[in-house]
Structures are given as C-alpha cells and as structure tokens.
C-alpha cells in the first residue's frame, strides 16, 4: 500500500484560483545568490544525455474516452455500451495509426496537441496497458488460474504497481529509481539529482539502494527567507548547527535530512537554473508549470553533469465516478495535451527532442459501462508516449475487443491488459541504456516480450 497523491493537485478551476490567490498572498524574497558557494559538480557537456519524464494521471484516467474506434460498427458498439459517457463521433479527433490496417481511431476532443504530435510521428499510443503478473486471458482470469496483481482496482495499490512494477508485495522502490541506481555511478556528483520530482513524493523514483525522489518546486521557489546557509549571524549559526547535529531519533534525523536536502536544492538548483531560460511559452496551468520546470532542468543538464535523469510530474482529479466525468476529463486532458505539446516544442527548442521521452501512466482504466453518472475502477487503459526517439504514429499493442463480457473483459468492461507496465518500462529502459539491468529492475519481465518496439 502506498502513496495516494500528496503533492498532486487537480487541474480544476478551483485549484487554479486557489494557487493564484496564494501567489498573491505571500511572496518569497530569495537570498542574495552572490553569497552562495560554487557548484561542486564539474560542468561537463553531456553528449549522451537522456531523460525520461513520467506523467502520472492520479485517480485512474478513463482511457475508454482517450482513444475511441471510429470504424462505424465499432463506434456504434462503443456508443451503445457507454450510454451517457459516449463522446459524439464527430467531436473525436481522427488519427490513422500506420499499423492498424486502415482502421481509424479518434482521440479525445481536448487532445489536439497529442493528435498533432501523433500525426508528425512524435507520439505513439499504447493500447490496453496495465498491471500484470503474467500474460492473462479471460478464461485464466475467470478461473483465477494464473497469478494476478494484488489489490486490483484499489487506487493506492495500483498507483504503486504502475510506479514500481511490483505487483505481489508492498513495494518500497520504483522502477525508475531502480534503473537509475544501476545507471549512475555510485560516486557521481549530484547523483541525487538523477531523480527529480515536480510533484512531490512518488514511488517511481525511489531506488532500492540510496536514491529517493528529489522534489523541485515547479514555481522555482527554493530559498529560505530567514536563513543564509553561509551566514555568521546568530540566527543563521543556530539554524546551521541545528541541522548539522546528528540525531539519534530516526524521525528527528529524517526531518533534518529533508531540511538539509532542501538547502542543498537551493544551492545547486538556483545556480543551475540561473541562466536556464526558454522561449517556448507554456500554458499557465499546474502541469504546464511542472513541465516547464522539467524543460528548464533539461536545459541546465550540463551544470548538474548527469547523463541520465528521470523526472516525475503529475495531475490529479481523474477519479471520475460522478456525473461531472465528461466535463472534468475534458478539462484535465486539455491541460495535459496543451502542456505536453509545449513541452515537446521546448525540447525541440533545446535540440533535445531525441533525448527526452515523456510517457503517461495512471492508477487504472475505468469501467466501459457507466454507473449512471460516471465510471468505476477498472484495469487496462490507453496511454501515450511522446518524443523524437519514439516511433510515432502507431498504435502499440492490440486495441481491446469492446464487447462487454467479451474476450477482453474481466466484467463491466474492465479490460484485461494486453500489455504490461513491465513491457512499457523495459522498452523505455532499453532506449535509456539500462538493457543489461532490465531483468533485475523488472522482476517479472521474464514473463513478457521485453521490447514493444516503439523506441528507435
């Protein structure tokens, strides 16, 4: 059991209003940067730089409305089964995957940015992906004759499994963190900055040795107002001494560690980001700010000197059981599509589009059938991967048969995934250069085809 989504925040109007309010309420006056010491990391040109960006949709995105078949008989099946949740056919944004034998699909109407990237071959769609222990058929599901992930349909557990690729135990580490433990030299300068989170704590970036997600404020606020880490005044001295004192009590030391890391953040990131500016305009949304900060950090990569980095971003509010599902999902997917389009443009501006790959994840999909208002927790769902190194314009995996109680259904239109999270991670991991460590990072990968083939 792990991690609801502490740092994540919904993209609702309300929350934006709240953030604006807060921004007006109290300003931060950063410290004079001139007093800070130099970066210890030797600035080096990272010729072989690669980054993964995990965009997590907390709450369980309804993938059934992210990707809809347009072929008339399949669309009719969709429309009949989804009743009040069916999107009108004419509103869907058509895409023609190069590998779907001419079958057309429609993206959610708010995802124009993704549609455009797909058309340019810079985005691929993953059909019916989810958590699995082994490849699983409907008859195996019905008979419970194969191992299944623990606590399917539970938010906290499925979030943890999407982030950890561990489906049969309470996971303590994530697959991003485990990969980075093996990719970064143990003595690499700034090693901790290999796993950066714009969205608070997450499991994906926690390693199995020493790495733990380093949190970065999407707004770029890093500094303590009241404390100069190199100051000699009595207050600064007292604080420095307080934080330097080793505590025997584990929770006390944990507190000191976090505060110490935040001061380290202030020192390293403020300098690294000092001249990191972008011409690309990002939408003024929560996710837009997160992805803008990721792009700025990519721009500042040589100052941190790491050749591999993982970034975690999130957006919440996808648990759409209620009758506001269509409106809410429209808002959220629009926020995603616009922010991701800007992010891709920023990587182009930086000349790094082939070195940065963004991919989406979520707790689970949602029931194909309506509960009369919205939809309930389900299993497999559709996702996207974006970047210049992605073999875009294709549909990866098999689109499920949308027959309720049909061959892909675990009940009520809960699609049994055709592709596992391990396969997504391993395909990305191979591109990332972690090929030899993949079986260690993904303990169940041996059960699956390890390369989905969507990366160059």
């Amino acid at each position, binding site marked *: 059991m792990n991690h609801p989504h502490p740092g994540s925040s919904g993209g609702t109007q309300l929350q934006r209003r709240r953030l604006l309010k807060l921004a007006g309420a109290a300003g*931060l006056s950063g410290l004079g940067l001139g007093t800070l010491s130099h970066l210890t990391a030797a600035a080096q040109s990272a010729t072989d730089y690669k980054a993964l960006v995990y965009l997590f949709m907390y709450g369980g995105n309804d993938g059934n409305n992210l990707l809809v078949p347009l072929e008339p008989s399949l669309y009719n099946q969709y429309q009949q089964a989804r*009743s009040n949740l069916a999107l009108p056919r004419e509103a869907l944004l058509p895409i023609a995957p190069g590998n779907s034998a001419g079958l057309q699909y429609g993206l959610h109407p708010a995802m124009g940015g993704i549609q455009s990237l797909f058309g340019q071959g810079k985005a691929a769609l993953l059909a019916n992906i989810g958590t699995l222990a082994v490849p699983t058929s409907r008859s195996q599901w019905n008979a419970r004759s194969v191992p299944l992930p623990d606590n399917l349909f539970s938010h906290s557990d499925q979030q943890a499994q999407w982030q950890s690729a561990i489906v049969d135990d309470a996971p303590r580490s994530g697959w991003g963190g485990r990969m980075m433990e093996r990719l970064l030299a143990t003595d690499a300068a700034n090693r901790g900055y290999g796993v950066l989170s714009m969205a608070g704590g997450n499991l994906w970036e926690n390693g199995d040795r020493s790495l733990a997600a380093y949190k970065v404020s999407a707004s770029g606020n890093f500094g303590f107002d*009241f404390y100069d880490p190199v100051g000699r005044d009595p207050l600064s001295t007292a604080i420095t001494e307080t934080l330097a004192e080793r505590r025997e009590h584990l929770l006390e030391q944990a507190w000191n560690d976090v505060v110490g890391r935040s001061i380290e*953040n202030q020192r390293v990131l403020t300098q690294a980001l000092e001249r990191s500016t972008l011409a690309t305009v990002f939408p003024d949304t929560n996710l837009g700010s997160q992805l803008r900060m990721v792009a700025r950090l990519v721009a500042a990569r040589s100052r941190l000197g790491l050749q591999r980095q993982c970034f975690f971003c999130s957006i919440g509010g996808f648990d759409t059981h209620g009758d506001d599902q269509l409106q809410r999902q429209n808002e959220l997917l629009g926020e995603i599509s616009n922010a991701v389009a800007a992010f891709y443009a920023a990587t182009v501006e930086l000349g790094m589009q082939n070195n940065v790959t963004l991919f989406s994840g979520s707790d689970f999909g949602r029931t194909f059938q309506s509960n009369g208002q919205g939809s309930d927790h389900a299993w497999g769902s559709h996702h996207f991967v974006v970047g210049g190194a992605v073999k875009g314009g294709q549909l990866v995996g098999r689109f499920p048969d949308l027959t309720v109680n049909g061959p892909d259904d675990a009940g009520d239109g809960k699609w049994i995934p055709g592709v596992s999270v391990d396969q997504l991670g391993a395909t990305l991991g191979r591109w990332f250069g972690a090929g030899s460590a993949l079986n260690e990072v993904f303990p169940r990968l041996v059960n699956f085809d390890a390369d989905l083939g969507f990366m160059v």
Partner: protein
Amino acid sequence: MDQPCLFESNLALPAQRPRNGGRASATGLALAALLALSACGGGGGGAPATNPDGSTLAGSGNEPPAQPVVANRPSQQDAARMLIQATFGATSVDDIEALRVEGFERWLWNQFNTPAMSHTGYLDAQRSRNEKSRATEEMSYEAVWQQWLTGPDQLRARVSFALGQIVVISNVAPDLRPYAMSSYLDMLNRNAFGNYRTLLKDVTLHPAMGYYLNMMKSEKDDPAQGIHPNENYAREVLQLFSIGLVELNPDGSVKLGSDGKPIPTYGEAEVKGFAKAFSGWTFASQDPARPSQFQKGDENLDSNWTTPMRAFASKHSPEAKKLLGSTTLPAGQTPEKDLEDAIDVIFNHPNVGPFIGRQLIQRLVTSNPSRAYIARVTAVFNNNGAGVRGDLKSVVQTILLDPEARVPATGSSYGKQREPVIRFANYLRALGARSSSGINAIHYLDSTDDGLGQSPLLAPSVFNFFSPNYRQPGAVARAGLYAPEFQITTETSVVGSLNFFANLIHNGGYGWDDNRMVLNTKPLEALASDPGALVARIDALFFGYQMGSSTRERLTRMLAAMPGGNDYQRKERVQAALIVTAISPDYVIQK
C-alpha cells in the same frame, strides 16, 4: 429508523429567530440544529452517556472523577505532553498547571462533557458578510480554526480532526457546498465521543459524503442501458473507513493465509454487493413517491446539505447482495434495511478495532505504536467493559491513558511528526493570537510553495494528505517504521512551511483587516533580557518540557549573542528563538 439526532432536530424544530426580516429558513434550521446540539449527546453539560443496558460509559459518570491528591499529580512534562497529544496546544503555562491540578481522568471527563462548537452555527452567524448573504467556503475553513484556536472543546476538536482524516471529505474536486462541509464537521464532532457504528451510518448518509463519493443518486442496475450502481463509496468505505484491504490480527499485524500471503478482506463481488446495498439514496428534499425526482434536487438549498439523504425504494437494487464473509442480504429488502444491515456487517468485522484504533493512535500519540498498545485499544473498541462495541469515548480515553502514551519510550522511534496545521495552531495559541473581530481569516494553507502543504478540508483525495502506511525512504523505511506525516514533508514543502512560520513570526500575525490574528509576544519579550528564562518558557509552551539539551544550549547561546538592551532588540530575540523552534527536530517530532 434511528436517525441521527442533529438531523432529526433539524427536521422537527420550526425555524427560529430568523434574522434579516425573516428570510432564509435554512438559517433558522441550522440555528435550531445549534440549539439542539447540546440536547443530543454532543455534550450536554455533564449529562452522563449510558449504554443501552443502563450502565455508564467510561469517563462519563454523573460525577466527575476526583482531582488527584498533590502527590499523585502528573508531572509538568506529562501534563504538557497530554496537551500536545490531545489539544491544539497550551495557551499558557497556566493551562499546563491547571491540568496537573485537575488530573487526567477529571480533565478527560470535562472534555468529554464539553459541548461542541457548531460549525453550521458559525456559517449562520457569518453569512451576512457575503453580499448575497450566502455562506462561503472560506467561512467553513474559518469555523475549523475558530474551534481549534478558541474552542473549549479541544479534545473533541482533535479527535474529530483525526476521524476526519479517516472518513475524508475534501473541497478539492468536486467542490462541496459550505453547509455540506460544516454540517459534516458538526456530525464528526457529535460522534467523536459516540459510537463508531453511528458514525459510520451518519457518514454514509451525509449528503457531503454522498456527493463526494457518489453514493448520492446511485441507482439500481439498468441492463438495457448497461448501467450498474456506483461503486465509489462501497469501495472506499471498506478500504479506508473501516476494515482495510487485508485481514488483521487484534494487534494490527497482518494475518497470513496458508500460502503465506495476506488475506484479502473483500473482492469485486463484495464491492458490487455493497454498491447495490447502498443504492437508491438522494437529497432529502426529494419525494420518493415521484421517481423522476431521484436524479434532481436543489443544490442551492442549504438544508439539502445538512439533512441525511433519503431513500427511493424504486431506485434501490432489489437483488440479493453479497457482503463480507458469508453474509448475503436477501433480495427485496428496503433500502433502509439493506443500509442498516450493511453497516452492521462492516461495523462488526474484527478489523475495525485495530484498523481505526491504530490510526487514532497515530494521529494523537505515535506513528509506530507497539502491537500490545494496538491490542489494548482494540480490546476496548471491541468491548468497553460494559458490553458495548465501538465506544469511541472509551477508545480515546484508553489511547491517551495507555502507559505507552503516558511514558515516552526511550529509543529512537517513539512519537510522531506534529502535523503542519497542528504546529500552526500551536504557534497561534501559545502566542495568544487574537483578531479585533474575534474571528480569523485562515483559509488555504495547502500550497507547498508558500503554505503548509496541508489545510483542513482540502486533502487532495479521499486518501487524505498522507497514508497511515507511508514509509519515509532511508533509515526510517529501513527500520521498518511508518512516518505518515513525512509523506507531505518534502524538500519543497519544508521550504514553503518554514518560510510560512518565519513570515508569521516576522509579520506578527496572520490574515488581514479586522480578522488578522495578531500575535502577542509581549509575555515572551518580558523574559527576553534573560535568555535562560525565555528558553524555559519556550520549552514549556512549544516543546512540552522536552527540549533537548543541545537545542537549549544553542538557543541560549544565540540569544546571548544578540543584543537585548531595548524593546526592539528583545523582540528580535523572541523572533529568532521562535524561528529556531520551528525548525528544531525536537519540536517538530513530538514524543
């Protein structure tokens, strides 16, 4: 059917004393609710709570327990620790001394019998501030802080807050109406020392929860439309509000099956069964005789948010319902009967004691209670000594008077991080914060950039701000320990929250205009020419007389290094000491 008392009064009493020319009957209704509160177990000024068999519940006899003789008084440190665990902090050293004289049993008895502050009453009183005389969400937040900062019902407020972090509602998606939130908090206050079964039922039927987790307007299956009852509430009431995902032993440890794996408490069939059992409920204003009204209801009608939901038999799943274990409800029961039966099944599951007891211990005392401590609390949850299961008053008393709560364990893991909002309340109370209007302007504290990363009624989801099972990566996780509050303690949030405290201290208050809570640091400044005396007072008010010797030496040395010859310099000394306190691990971690 046994309607919750507040709601019953709400419906039964006529609107009283309407203000502003007799408009707005909702005002009167809520006022009636306020008046009714003291008559129905919300306090009652000394009226003893009794069991169905007439015996008296623990801590609630007609007569308060006697004060201890002088020799048996708790120590200063233990009294201060009790205030840290069970209230929002001492307001003065007199508070601590009064508790010593009174003794814990008598203090608890008095707290159990102190009436609750009414949150809807606050909205009634404040709504005229709004240009359309509507209550606002900000008013709902202010009411929380009003109770925390000024209420005499401190233990009730603290237990309600703890319960509200289990049975979570939040104004973050979807938006909740102010009366929905405040009425929900009144409901938690009313049940804080009541019975967990009543609480579960009141939570289930409260329109705020109905709206938040979509039980409201959930209908029976419609195969033609491919529609099934909404599973949201059914799933979370099991996973989060009562029993959790896996079977537990009475000491909170996970039971293992013959395959060595945890035993799930329920599966999809049970979720569907509960979803059916809970189908057919909507706003109280709707008429069951007119099925077309089921999906409607006026969201602008305040009483719709303060009155329990109403059942439409025509919208209720008629089939048999598979529930927990071997229980199946027969087909054809009324929605009311199915609901009562379903609540009984949940409430009587053996997991409820350890599942809820552990979390209440974590919210009040320590993040990692021993198995024996959990088992002692479970035993009282299961039977309060008078044959009653689920008696929260006895559970709270047991948690706070347990040896593990009263005698801080030595060692390296006892205690918990004080939640950020509780630290903030502690500062405002200890520093005598007051506004000229008598109310506050404390609203949104959830920003991690410049707030506390936590704010009442603004959790990111029903999973609350943090999980009871969160493990902080590093030494804490390696030791197998939980540290729930550390889930919102990040490199970014500590910057935001420590700046927040520094701003509070430097600015001398929080809020604006007449509602600005102004700190009164004069009593501390009066001590500030003597560093030792100032540090001793801070030790009492903030550290519960548990300041570590290194912190004491550092603070004293810092103060001595600062000039203290005039008022301004003495104020600076106080501010510096309060800032170092905010960052000191021996303050942040209560033990």
